[in-house]
């Protein structure tokens, strides 16, 4: 349960940062927090307290004590995606700073209406 609460707290914090902060880097950090929160959520779905890795190496370990492998696979993918997005975002931020000379999103408002 604590994992769920924690993951949602992370997501909400991240969303708050994305919505309220002015600095582009901070916003991207917020997005990363959201990602982390979601990943934590996914992991905690498959988590079993005291479970082992889902590898049939030892026949003595019953299937029930293994954690669910699917969320882990999902999370791996999600992390990769998150990494790609963050990397792209940061490189875009560099460009934005190059063009606008600021990271304040309240000032990067040439496209509107």
């Amino acid at each position, binding site marked *: 349960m604590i994992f769920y609460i924690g993951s949602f707290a992370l997501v909400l914090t991240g*969303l708050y940062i*994305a*919505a309220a902060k002015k600095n582009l880097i901070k*916003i991207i950090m917020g997005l990363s927090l959201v990602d982390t929160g979601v990943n934590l959520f996914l992991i905690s779905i498959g988590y079993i307290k005291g479970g082992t890795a889902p590898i049939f190496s030892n026949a003595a370990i019953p299937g029930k004590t293994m954690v669910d492998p699917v969320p882990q696979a999902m999370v791996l993918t999600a992390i990769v995606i998150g990494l790609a997005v963050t990397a792209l975002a940061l490189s875009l931020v560099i460009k934005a700073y190059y063009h606008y000379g600021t990271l304040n999103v309240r000032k990067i408002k040439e*496209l*509107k*209406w």
Partner: protein
Amino acid sequence: MTLKILLLTAFGGAFVTYFLGKVSSKLRNYFAVFVSLTLFVAVACLYGKSAENFSYFKFFGNTLVLRVNSLSWFFAAAVSAFGALSVIFSLDYMKGKENLDFYYMMMLLVNAAMLGIVFAADLVSFFVFWEIMSWSTFLLISYSGKNALPAGIKYIVMSLIGSMAMFFGILSIYVNFHTLIISEIARGIVSASSGYKIFILVLFGVTFGIKSAVMPLHTWLPDAYTESPTPFSAVLSGMLTRMGVYGFLLFFYVVAGASFFFDIDAGISKFNYILCWLGAITIVIPTFIAMLQNDAKKLLAWHGIGQGGYMILGIAFGTSLGLAGGILHTLNYSICIVLLFMSVGAVEYRCGGVRDLNSLGGLIKKMPVAFAGALLGISGLIGLPLTNSFVSKWLIYKTLILKSHPFLAFAALIGTWGTILSVYKFLHNNFLGELPEKYENIRKSPVSMQIPIIILSSAILLFGILPGIPLKVINTIITSFGFNSLNVNLWGIASETGTLNTINIFTAILIAGSVIWMLFRVGKKSFPVTQDDNYAAGAYVPAGKYNYTADFYAPLFKIVKPYLMDFADKFFGWLCRVFTGFSEGVRKIYAGDVGYYVLYILFFAALLFFVQSGGKSW
């Protein structure tokens, strides 16, 4: 199959004309004239035929159908005739302008679309042709650039409003009756509830009201008529606007059915009386506004609105006489107004595009044919005896009197007074009075302009003296609506309450005319005087700078002007400004700040959450 081939020729001809223009402009012109004349001949050959259901196409599994009957023949003949005449008129008028390939293609396309409208026997093809007509008209109105552009936008926006109403109505009918064929709908609609019928009629009423410029919905018309190329103004006023009348006839009498149409109670008054009153208002106000205009085409344009009122009045009354009057007036008015636009066009062509009534005058000697056309045209508009409109107006007045509606009859009469005043101004300021010096060297109008003018002038006299020719066709139309047949002969209409016989009138006028002529012969000869002799109290007037046609009717203006505001136009203008302001406001949603955008997402999710949980989240 003939109808299909006819329409294919019409549409194909339009496109071929465009491509021929790339080869040679002469070839293109001849071909355009050839196509339009062919269409006229082909339509004329269909006379008297009445056939339903030439299915020609499948669209989403619905068979699209064409048909010809007396109603569609009547309109098709007029469409193709006016189309051919205005293409001929264009030959010289448009010479030297740019984009002529496009112009001729669009002229033929509008023509083809109108033919499609009148031959369509199912609602989808009706709508398709209607829309093709709308957008090609839009392109032609905008053709001249500059001031024409707002006029075009005004037209297409109103037209789109109308077509959306119709679109909705058509599909509603389709969904309810599972058919698109007009004759089947007419059978099916009998069983519909009257509320539904009123709903449908209002939807279609808006559409056709906009097209035929019934009073509060007329605002597109003056600008559009004024700004389009004159030959197209002629088509626009002559036939395109009258497609609205065709629509009224089709939907009120064929689809909804006459018996139903007169029985609907719209709360305060009967439905058709509301239309009658709208027609009456449309007669009175625009004809007087027309008087105020100084642009020759604008003056005619306001007449276009005003005369449309007579048609609506006649049609909405729905007696055999009234209906015959309304339909006949459609034709007669079209002949007159096309003729008038062509005379204006001839003057405009020779005077270098000037249409300002304050600066023209005295062209009678220079352009006799145009003058004759204008004279007959205005006589027709007023409805002088022996011109065609006399008959149709007589029928309409008679209907009003027989049905004892003194106010409506009075409105119609006032409309005629306004017409007389304003068209006289038109004739006088163009052709009579003193010729401004700069127009001393003006030549006659070219042959390609004279031909249509002469043809239409003779048509006015012909239909004025022998009204039986069109009335015979109209008689079959009204009998097909289920009305009593009129007793039509070549000279007029014989009825129990007074016979119209143009031969008697003709003889009477002939006698009176010769008496007057003899009196003039006996009396003293008139002689021309120079302006300096009797004008300006002997003071010197610089002849070049002064033109006495300026400010015609000035004292009358002062009296009537405050009452003649175009309220509808003002209202729509206001509406546009409000909408523009509103959209300026709505745009601000996209504020450019990404923080807001993220908030939008969160709010949306929250709202969705709230709705989905059935509001039970808290």
